[in-house]
């Protein structure tokens, strides 16, 4: 019994590693880079306001557009991760079905 459990666990782990390596499951570094880029852009917009090249109202709209852009990117990352997770679960389900001969 213990041997069967170990075999199944090994197969599941192998499938998990295959799926994780072929899909972008971990994207935290990308999120940090995009957030850092937004901070720099907001700083540049503030500098333009100080230099008198943009009004406060224009700056507010520019900032809103940049913020929307980042949110759209983060949503894409979330969606792609959901799809990757769906594939991991499907892959593990296939392993289990194969293991039990279903």
């Amino acid at each position, binding site marked *: 019994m213990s041997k069967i459990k170990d075999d199944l666990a090994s197969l599941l782990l192998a499938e998990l590693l295959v799926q994780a390596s072929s*899909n972008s499951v971990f994207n935290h570094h990308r999120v940090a880079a995009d957030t850092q880029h937004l901070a720099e852009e907001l700083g540049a917009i503030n500098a333009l306001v100080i230099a008198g090249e943009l009004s406060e109202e224009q700056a507010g709209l520019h900032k809103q557009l940049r913020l929307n852009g980042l949110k759209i990117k983060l*949503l894409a990352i979330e*969606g792609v991760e959901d*799809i990757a997770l769906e594939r991991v679960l499907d892959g593990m389900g296939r392993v289990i079905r194969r293991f039990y001969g279903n």
Partner: protein
Amino acid sequence: MNCLWIAKNGLVLSILLALGGCSLVSISPYDSSADKAITKLHKQTAEFFSEFTKADELGCGYSHHLPFYQNSKVSMSSLLVRARAMADNHITVSQLELLSSSYAGLAQLHQLGCFTPAQVNELWTSFDASFSAVLKLELAKKYGR
């Protein structure tokens, strides 16, 4: 002992098969019409921004670009109606709502005055990145990553 073993492992097996058979994570399928409409809107937006490189001071005002703002508003509305009608599509809907808000912000910004070449460049970069992100998710639905 035998009954207990069957009960315990049967339960585990049922849970695992359920997990494998129906996904916990659910996302809408790929929509080729949305893909085409987003790509078309991206092209129209690229053309809008490229016009500023050749527009003189008289042609750079908001009123000269009214057809673009009207067309993009209609396109966004159609995209949103279709996206909202699909099940498990809340992420794409949120993306399109934000993109629609960006078009409204762009129009407001334009009404305050003509864009400088630097602004055109930065605004286009922002819109281009947003379109890439929306298409990235749509294509991930098709290709799985």
